[in-house]
């Protein structure tokens, strides 16, 4: 039995208006070195973090959205998006970045990291976590 703890990062805030989205991602990247079981959940305005085509040039701040595509390389490949939050905002999976990871056990086959789940499924998942960090 593994000693690893289950870490869940819940992201509920939109990017850029506040720094929580970006500083949350910084925690995830550092945390990836610790060999724990990591999941990310994007709910409510947090789903906006993964919007395609972000361009911060005119605002003049750092565009950190490309960093999400590096998550797979850090073995962070359990990314849950709440269906209800997407739908409430008139969004579909096509509006979001396509995040993938390569499965070492299957000859580095490329697989999707993102799973769209219902509130009920997410609630069950939360209930199995050891550490929940909410941003």
């Amino acid at each position, binding site marked *: 039995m593994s000693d690893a703890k289950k870490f869940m990062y*819940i992201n*509920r*805030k939109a990017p850029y208006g506040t720094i*929580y989205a970006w500083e949350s991602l910084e925690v995830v990247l550092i945390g990836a070195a610790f060999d724990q079981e990591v999941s990310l959940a994007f*709910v*409510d305005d947090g789903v906006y973090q993964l919007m395609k085509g972000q361009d911060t040039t005119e605002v003049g701040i750092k565009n950190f959205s490309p960093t999400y595509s590096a998550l797979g390389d850090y073995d962070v490949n359990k990314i849950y998006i*709440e269906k*209800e939050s997407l739908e409430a905002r008139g969004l579909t999976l096509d509006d979001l970045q396509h995040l993938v990871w390569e499965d070492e056990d299957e000859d580095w086959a490329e697989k999707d990291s993102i799973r769209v789940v219902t*509130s009920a499924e*997410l*609630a*069950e998942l*939360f*209930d*199995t*976590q*050891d*550490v*929940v960090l*909410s*941003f």
Partner: protein
Amino acid sequence: MSILHTVNKSTYERDTLEACVRLAAKGGSVLLIEDGVYSAMSGGSKSSVIDNAKGDLNFYVLGPDIKARGLSEDRLIDGVKVVDYKGFVELTVENDTVSAWL
């Protein structure tokens, strides 16, 4: 497993409590702290958030935050229990995980 959820914002101002209630598994506990305590008052247009969820979740409010805001325990939604900081600590120990809804 059981989770203690903390909510620190008024449900009139933010979507935090509704997110918590939607995503908390049955049997979990919700502790309202800071401006979250306003959501536990009866007779308001959003008292229904807790009224509708209290069959599935256990609701608590932090007493010191109630008193600071001049709220009366008499007007809490039925079934919401008052705890002090000591009770807050006990709730974190009794549950397996603490999840802060921010």
